[in-house]
C-alpha cells in the first residue's frame, strides 16, 4: 500500500475544517488526526508528487526524499504523542493544532519556494495562536510582529530570486543558480533573515524569551521543540539543497551563527530558571545547527536537529509539568524534586546529558562527529570554540539536573520534601513517552551507527553535502 504524502497535509486540514461543525468531539479529532498522520507517514514512498498534474517547474511538487521522510516521521510521532498527553490543554485549539500539523508537514514536503511561504505563514499564525494560550498576549504579539517581518523578508528575497531566475521551483532554482550564481546574494540574505526569525537565530530571536519563558507543557514542546526543529529542517533544505551561497555570504552568516552559539550558551549560563535555561540553550543549539548547514554538513546537521528536537521536547514537556506542580521554575526552589519523581528525573537527565553531549547518550556521537569533521576541513579554531561552548553548556545543564536531584540543606535537615510525587499529577503516558524517548537516546548512544547511517543515507545525496566521515561505534576512518 502506498500513500500520497499530500494526505499528511490534507487529512489534518479536512479534519480541522469539519471539526468546527462538531465542537463536542474536538479532542477526538485532534488525537485521531495526528495518529492517522503517523500511520500515513509509514506508507509514504520516496519520490516526486505533482499537484494538479502539472509538471515540476510550473506546478507545485511535493519532494519526498529520505530527508523529508525521516523528518516527517519524527515530527508526526512527536506531535501525536503531544496531542495524546495534553489533550486537555489543546481543547480550545484543536483546529489550530491540526492546521499547525498540516503546515509543518507542508513545510517539510514542499518543493516550491512560494508554497513554502504559504505554509510558513500558516505555521506562524498557528504558532502565535498556540503561544497566546498562555494568556500573555503582548508576548504573543511580539512573536507575531517578528514572524511577520520574517515572512516579509522571505517573500522579498523570494521575489528577487524569481526576478533573477524566473522560477519558483526549488530544483530548477538550484540548477539555474549553479549556472549563474552572481547577483543572488541579497535575495539569499533576505531569505535567510526571514527564516532566521523562526529558527531563533540570535539577533532575530527577541520573541523567544517572552513566548517560552512562560511556556506550559503544551506550548513548550510545541514551539520550543517541534516548531524549532521543523523550521530548522526547512532551513537545511533551502541552504543545502537549493541555494548556492557565495563563500563571502557563508562567512558572514556563519559569524552570525557563531555569535548565536556563544551568546546563547552564555545567556543560559547566566539564567537561574529552568525554562529560560532551556530556551537559551535552544537558541545556542540552533546557532550550531545553522553553522553546520551553512558549511555544508548536511547529514550532521540533520541528525543534530532531530536529536535536539527530541531532547528539547522531553525537557520542555517535563518542565511544563514541574511548573504546574510547583508553581515556579526557579531552580533554587525545586531542589530535590527528582528524588520523589525518579522516572521524570531519569527522562529529564537522559535528555539533558544527551543535549550536553555526554557519552552513553546519542548527543555525544553527534558532537564528536561534528568536531571531527570540522577539524578535518577547517582550522582548529572552530572546534575549539564549539568545545568551549559545550563546556559552558555541560556545566549549566548539569547544574540544573543536579540541582533537581540534590536535596537542599533545609530539606536535608527537616526531611520535608516540598514537592512530593503526589504533587506532580502526571499520566502514566507522560512517564511512558518521555522514558521511551530517553531510552531511545541511550540506545542510539550505544549504537550510533544506525542513526549516523540513516542520516548519511538521508543527506548523502544532498547537493551541497560535504561527505562527512562518520565515527560510530563500529569505528571510524583510520581504524
Amino acid at each position, binding site marked *: 500500500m502506498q500513500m500520497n504524502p499530500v494526505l499528511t497535509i*490534507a487529512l489534518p486540514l479536512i479534519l480541522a475544517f*469539519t471539526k468546527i461543525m462538531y465542537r463536542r468531539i474536538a479532542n477526538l479529532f485532534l488525537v485521531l488526526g495526528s495518529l492517522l498522520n503517523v500511520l500515513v507517514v509509514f506508507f509514504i514512498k520516496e519520490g516526486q508528487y505533482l*499537484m*494538479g498534474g502539472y509538471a515540476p*517547474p510550473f506546478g507545485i511538487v511535493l519532494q519526498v526524499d529520505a530527508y523529508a521522510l525521516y523528518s516527517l516521521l519524527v515530527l508526526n510521532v512527536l506531535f501525536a504523542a503531544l496531542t495524546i498527553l495534553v489533550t486537555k490543554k489543546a481543547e480550545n*485549539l484543536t483546529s489550530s493544532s491540526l492546521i499547525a500539523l498540516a*503546515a509543518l508537514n507542508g513545510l517539510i514536503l514542499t518543493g516550491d519556494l512560494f508554497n513554502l511561504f504559504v505554509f510558513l505563514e500558516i505555521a506562524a499564525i498557528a504558532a502565535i495562536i498556540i503561544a497566546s494560550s498562555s494568556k500573555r498576549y503582548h508576548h504573543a504579539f511580539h512573536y507575531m510582529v517578528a514572524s511577520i517581518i520574517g515572512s516579509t523578508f522571505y517573500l522579498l528575497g523570494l521575489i*528577487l530570486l524569481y*526576478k533573477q531566475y*524566473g522560477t519558483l521551483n526549488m530544483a530548477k532554482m538550484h540548477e539555474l543558480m549553479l549556472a549563474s550564481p552572481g547577483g543572488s546574494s541579497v535575495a539569499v540574505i533576505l531569505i535567510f533573515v526571514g527564516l532566521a526569525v523562526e529558527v531563533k537565530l540570535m539577533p532575530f530571536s527577541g520573541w523567544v524569551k517572552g513566548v517560552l519563558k512562560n511556556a506550559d507543557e503544551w506550548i513548550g514542546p510545541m514551539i520550543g521543540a517541534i516548531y524549532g526543529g521543523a523550521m530548522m529542517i526547512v532551513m537545511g533544505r533551502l541552504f543545502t539543497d537549493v541555494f548556492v551561497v557565495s563563500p563571502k555570504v557563508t562567512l558572514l552568516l556563519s559569524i552570525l551563527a557563531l555569535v548565536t552559539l556563544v551568546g546563547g550558551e552564555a545567556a543560559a549560563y547566566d539564567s537561574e530558571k529552568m525554562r529560560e535555561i532551556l530556551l537559551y540553550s535552544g537558541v545556542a543549539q540552533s546557532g550550531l545547527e545553522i553553522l553546520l548547514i551553512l558549511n555544508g554538513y548536511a547529514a550532521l546537521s540533520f541528525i543534530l536537529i532531530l536529536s535536539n528536537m527530541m531532547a528539547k521536547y522531553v525537557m520542555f514537556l517535563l518542565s511544563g509539568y514541574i511548573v504546574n506542580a510547583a508553581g515556579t521554575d526557579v531552580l533554587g526552589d525545586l531542589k530535590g524534586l527528582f528524588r520523589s519523581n525518579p522516572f521524570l528525573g531519569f527522562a529529564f537527565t537522559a535528555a539533558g546529558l544527551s543535549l550536553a553531549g555526554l557519552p552513553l547518550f546519542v548527543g555525544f556521537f553527534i558532537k564528536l562527529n561534528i568536531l571531527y569533521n570540522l577539524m578535518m576541513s577547517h582550522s582548529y579554531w572552530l572546534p575549539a570554540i564549539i568545545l568551549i561552548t559545550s563546556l559552558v553548556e555541560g556545566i549549566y545543564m548539569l547544574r540544573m539536573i543536579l540541582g533537581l536531584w540534590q536535596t537542599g540543606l533545609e530539606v536535608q535537615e527537616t526531611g520535608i520534601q516540598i514537592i512530593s510525587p503526589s504533587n506532580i499529577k502526571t499520566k502514566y503516558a507522560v512517564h511512558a513517552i518521555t522514558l521511551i524517548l530517553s531510552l531511545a537516546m541511550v540506545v542510539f548512544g550505544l549504537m550510533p551507527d544506525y542513526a549516523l547511517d540513516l542520516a548519511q543515507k538521508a543527506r548523502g545525496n544532498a547537493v551541497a553535502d560535504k561527505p562527512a566521515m562518520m565515527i560510530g561505534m563500529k569505528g571510524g576512518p583510520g581504524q
Partner: protein
Amino acid sequence: MKRILILGLMAILVMGIYNYAVYDPYQKTTMPFEERDSQAYLSRSVNGDPGEVVYGKSTNLENGAANTVAAIVVDYRSFDTLGEVTVLFISSLGVAFLSGGFGKTIRLKHKPSFLLQYGARFVFGIILVFGAYMFLHGHLTPGGGFPGGAIIAASALVLYLGGESSGEKMKAFKILEGAAGSLYVLSGIVGLYFAGFFMQNVLPSGIVGHLFSAGIMPVIYILIGLKVGSELTGILDYFMREEVSS
C-alpha cells in the same frame, strides 16, 4: 534624532537592496519575461503545446480559463490557494480563540436611522448578488473567490450597521465555512483518487471565455467565495462581541 537615524538606516537598507538586487540596467540579473516559467501559463503549455490560444475558440485546453491569473491561482498553483484559504481559516479561528468564543454582541452606540436600517437591507441583497457574480466569473474576468467573499462579508457588515444582530445565523455560517473548506480539500482528494493527482482538474475545460468552462475552477471559486465570505463575516462578528466570562 533617533527617528532620523532610523530613517537613515532604512534608507541604507532600501538602497542596499535596490542597488544590489533590483537595479539592473544591463538586464544581467533579470530573467527576460519570455524565459520565465510563467510564460507556460500564458500559453497554457505546461503539459504540451496547444498552439495559439484564442478567446472563444480554443477548446480542450489543459486549463480553459480566460483569466490567466485565475488559472494560476485556482488551477496551476491551486495548492497555494488551499494554503491561502487555510490562512484565513486559522485567522478566524485565532480571532475566535482570542475573543473567547461566543460572547454577547456589543450594542452599537447609536440607534440606526430609518434610512440606514432599511437601506441596509435593500443594499445587502445587491451587494450579495454582486459578490456572487464576482466569484462565478472569476475565471473570466478580474476578481474571483477572495474578492467575492470579501464583498459578501461587506454585505454582512452593512447589515450590522443597519442594526441587525447576528445571533443564531453564526451557527449557519460556521457550518457553511466548515463545509466549504472540507469540500475544497475533498475536491482535491477526488482528483487524487479519480485522476491521479491531488487537486487535478477533473471536469472538461470547455471553450475559453464561456461561463461553463475551465473545468473545476468555477466550482472551487464558489467554494472559496462561500468560505471566505463566511469566515470574514465570522471575524467581523467576533470583533462585535465581548467576553462574557470576565
